[in-house]
């Protein structure tokens, strides 16, 4: 498979100026089989992919009655989460990944390393503002 080159947006900050934003359009398979596009932040610092809790309703994933995982981030605040999985599509490539459905509905869509970085070699190109994904054999 050839590499996929995905252009990324730039955000502007008053102090630092333009900052490369690794926002990646990812189609998520919904419960009825259709795919819905979400902008995920491709986050090499995140152990695994995480999404807000309500995403489980959209994809038809049955959450356990209580959170079975917890997540810690830069604030040292521990957030409860549910381990699960999702079916994704980037351009024409479909794949499944394990993920966390966070108990909160205010967390962003983060595409982390677990599974995804075993499927793709990921290259961040801040100069040309793009991400290049190359499927690993």
């Amino acid at each position: 498979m050839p590499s996929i080159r995905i252009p990324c947006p730039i955000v502007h900050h008053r102090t630092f100026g333009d900052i490369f934003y690794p926002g990646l359009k990812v189609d998520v398979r919904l419960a009825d089989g259709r795919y819905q596009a979400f902008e995920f932040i491709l986050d090499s610092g995140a152990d695994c992919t995480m999404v807000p809790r309500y995403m489980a309703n959209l994809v038809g994933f049955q959450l356990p009655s209580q959170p079975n995982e917890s997540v810690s981030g830069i604030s040292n605040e521990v957030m409860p989460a549910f381990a699960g999985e999702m079916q994704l599509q980037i351009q024409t490539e479909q794949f499944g990944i394990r993920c966390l459905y966070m108990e909160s509905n205010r967390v962003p869509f983060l595409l982390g390393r677990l599974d995804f970085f075993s499927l793709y070699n990921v290259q961040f190109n801040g100069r040309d503002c793009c991400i290049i994904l190359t499927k690993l054999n």
Partner: protein
Amino acid sequence: MEKKIRENIKRANSVGFVACYRGKEIAFARDFGTLAKKSKVKVLLGKKDFIIKHNVPEGMIAVY
């Protein structure tokens, strides 16, 4: 009109989720569940050119 202006100011200063159809923002909510339950979002789910994004106000540094 005044309500609309207030909403726009509140929206510009808020972290949350936006739904965009054909490049135009059609809905905003501070939490994803609220956004996904909006009727105009539900009818567009799965449609081409419809995307849902997390949004950080311009000028705010985001670190995850």
